């Protein structure tokens, strides 16, 4: 069953609502025991990087998640700060990330932004897949998704970059390594495109 990791951050109900409309059963996990039958994992996240990582540690689910994702290869989708947590670390904080996908999370360089508005990068932007990925099946070219963030994931190698968007410069907005996926935008709040992406993840 698709299991949404509830460690006290992120819009758990929004994911549950989208999947309910898609008739896909979901479960919400608050403690390690709730993760037992997970066949897919959703890792949401909002707010500051260190706060999110320490909340996840305190939830007591970290060891079970490492086992599910790294040993049993259960597909996982990190969203927004949940995606950033997949990295080795972030310039926003000091704590190490999950280090499931090699990379570092960095703040946008505001001097490169053409707009009067700087950060956060807020609103609807085009998402441009740079390689084939099951996440983007059935989505129109340059599908739009809702973004709300000030930091982005910089992969150590291009091989893990799945999609890019432009804010000043192009930045990575979707990553994948083996069974591990991450998107910077919010599919749970991105109308038909978001529902399609979440359905695609359910179908992996």
């Amino acid at each position, binding site marked *: 069953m698709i299991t949404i990791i509830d460690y006290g951050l992120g819009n758990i109900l929004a994911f549950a609502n989208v999947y309910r409309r898609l008739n896909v059963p979901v479960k919400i996990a608050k403690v390690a025991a709730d993760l037992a039958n997970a066949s897919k994992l959703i890792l949401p996240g*909002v*707010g500051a990087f260190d706060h999110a990582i320490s909340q996840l540690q305190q939830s007591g689910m970290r060891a079970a998640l490492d086992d599910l994702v790294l040993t049993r290869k259960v597909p996982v989708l990190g969203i927004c700060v949940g995606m950033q947590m997949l990295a080795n670390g972030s310039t926003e904080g000091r704590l190490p990330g999950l280090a499931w996908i090699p990379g570092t999370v960095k703040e946008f360089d*505001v001097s490169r932004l053409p*707009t009067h*508005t700087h950060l*956060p990068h*807020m*609103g609807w932007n085009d998402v441009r897949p740079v390689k084939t990925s099951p996440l983007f099946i059935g989505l129109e070219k340059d599908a739009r998704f809702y973004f709300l963030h000030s930091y982005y994931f910089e992969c150590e190698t291009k091989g893990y970059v799945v999609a890019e968007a432009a804010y000043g410069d192009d930045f990575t907005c979707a990553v994948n390594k083996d069974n591990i996926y991450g998107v910077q935008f919010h599919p749970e709040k991105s*109308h038909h495109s978001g529902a399609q992406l979440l359905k695609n993840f359910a179908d992996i």
Partner: protein
Amino acid sequence: MLRPRIIPCLLIKDKGLVKTVKFSAPKYVGDPINAVRIFNEKEVDELIVLDIDATSQGTGPDFKLIERLAAECRMPLCYGGGVKSVEQAKRIIGLGVEKVALSSAALAQPSLLRDIADEIGKQSVVVVLDVKKKIFGSRYEVHTHNGKVNTRQCPVEFAANLESLGIGEIVLNSIDNDGIMKGYDLDLIEKVRNVTSAPLSAVGGAGSLADIGKLIHRFGIIGAVAGSLFVFKGVYKAVLINYPPPEEKDRLIQASYIQ
């Protein structure tokens, strides 16, 4: 390309949806959940819901209603009304809301914004400034409690300090233009735009898509928020929830937005 956002703003009073003129004469326009369902179908960019009783009547946030709204919304939702504490803000985010808006509490105690941002992240903290022009002179003042209390604070000075407190967005609401449908107060918006690089949204006065086009033409990336425009149709203001279809919205932005 990041696009300017076009956002309906819904006002809640006695659990129903209302639309005001200059913050007065609330007219019942329907059921909030039903309106959200229609806005889902129309794929609106975002939604702002403000409970105009919560502070002025002292009732506080209606968590049951917020939970139902959040469950229904397939787009980002900003809730405002009666939020006065970190706990309330956390609870609202936990119900599935993306952004929490503060007004009177932020004016009374700006440091509260930082405390809330520490818990929910600054991207989710919104400050709503209800602004009225003084009858004599060109000075603007921020009002709270649904326009009833004049804080005498200058919105431009107040906005200039907000970014350092940790906020994700400023919503600038013109009381004088509310429900008038004759266009946004572009001078007021420009004054605030010049003192902050935080995301800015403007509400009050939009009477047509052309008004939104003018706003985007002048300010580029901005939140164009409207109440009356998206709940009324025609000169007699018949209640009809509406929003430009995607192609029309794209055309409007293409014609107005100079990068």
